[in-house]
């Protein structure tokens, strides 16, 4: 589909090889998202660095206040699922949520294509989650007991249970990444088609839908990651 791309324009401007605009579009937009998050979080960190001065929050809507609200909401969601170990997992989960949310939200900027539209970005995030919850499971249970869980309680059913468990574990990152990619790609295509039909007022409705979908999908991705971590940590009651 022929469309204006900010990334291709940016690549032209900086004198990089022009084929990069097509091939590495999602990498470049992911870099832009990363730089954006970095700048915003540095600004917030400069304000929140001295916790003593921040005991009484300002009574205006500032960047730091918004950041506090977001982190508190994420922490509450984590504590519902994970209990006392929630704070340990907050950096990964909150980072994933903010990265995926802002990545998906770039889809409503005209000329940008969201990095989450490519399977590569999503599979990278999902594989990180996959490795992370396995490492957490092995840390809490020890490597022998963690893999013994997969064989189930009955000895003669063990081969079947092992196969089922392994498939269900391997499908997890694949389904996480394909779900996110399909949702964002589908939404972006719908937005593109309606911009072709009626470029003035109609796309606003679909932009609102895009914001909603971006939020829900980032939430679902992180929520499922939290559930996988919780499942890897729990499992004592089986034995």
């Amino acid at each position, binding site marked *: 589909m022929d469309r204006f791309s900010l990334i291709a324009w940016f690549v032209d401007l900086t004198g990089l090889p022009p084929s990069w605009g097509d091939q590495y579009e999602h990498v470049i937009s992911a870099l832009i998202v990363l730089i954006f998050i970095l700048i915003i979080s540095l600004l917030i960190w400069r304000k929140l660095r001295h916790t003593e001065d921040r005991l009484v929050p300002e009574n205006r809507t500032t960047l730091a206040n918004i950041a506090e609200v977001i982190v508190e909401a994420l922490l509450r969601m984590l504590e519902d699922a994970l209990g006392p170990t929630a704070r340990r997992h907050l950096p990964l989960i909150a980072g994933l949520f903010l990265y995926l949310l802002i990545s998906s939200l770039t889809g409503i900027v005209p000329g940008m294509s969201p990095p989450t539209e490519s399977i590569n970005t999503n599979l990278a995030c999902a594989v990180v989650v996959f490795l992370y919850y396995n490492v957490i499971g092995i840390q809490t249970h020890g490597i022998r007991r963690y893999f013994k869980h997969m064989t189930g309680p009955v000895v003669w059913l063990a081969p079947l249970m*092992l196969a089922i468990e392994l498939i269900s574990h391997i499908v997890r990152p694949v389904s996480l990444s*394909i779900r996110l990619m*399909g949702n964002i790609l589908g939404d972006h295509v719908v937005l593109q088609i309606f911009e072709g039909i009626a470029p003035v007022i109609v796309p606003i409705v679909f932009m609102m839908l895009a914001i909603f979908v971006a939020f829900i999908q980032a939430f679902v991705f992180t929520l499922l990651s939290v559930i996988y971590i919780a499942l890897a940590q729990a499992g004592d009651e089986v034995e």
Partner: protein
Amino acid sequence: MKRIAALATGTYVALFPFLVVAQETFTETTKVMKFGAYRWALAIGAGIAIGLAALGGAIGQGKVAAAAMEGIARNPEAGKRVLTPMIIALALIESLVIYALVIAFLLQGQI
């Protein structure tokens, strides 16, 4: 028990490359054009695939939403606690529809 653990680790390591292979074929198949005169079937197939998937997904999501609404109506204080499991259920149902959407995109890419 040690043998079971060794077996499990072995299978794990052996199955892991499939992730990479799956992704390779995912990008490769969209470039092949081998259907010739029957390309119209791809268009119909893509349309039917996403249509049927949307039908099934809509029925499933409707049931989830109806049950959640009923639960909230009976006990409005439980609204916040119902919301998160409902979103998980909706996402899991929706992911099946999204698989069909991905398949439809793959078929469309081959036309």
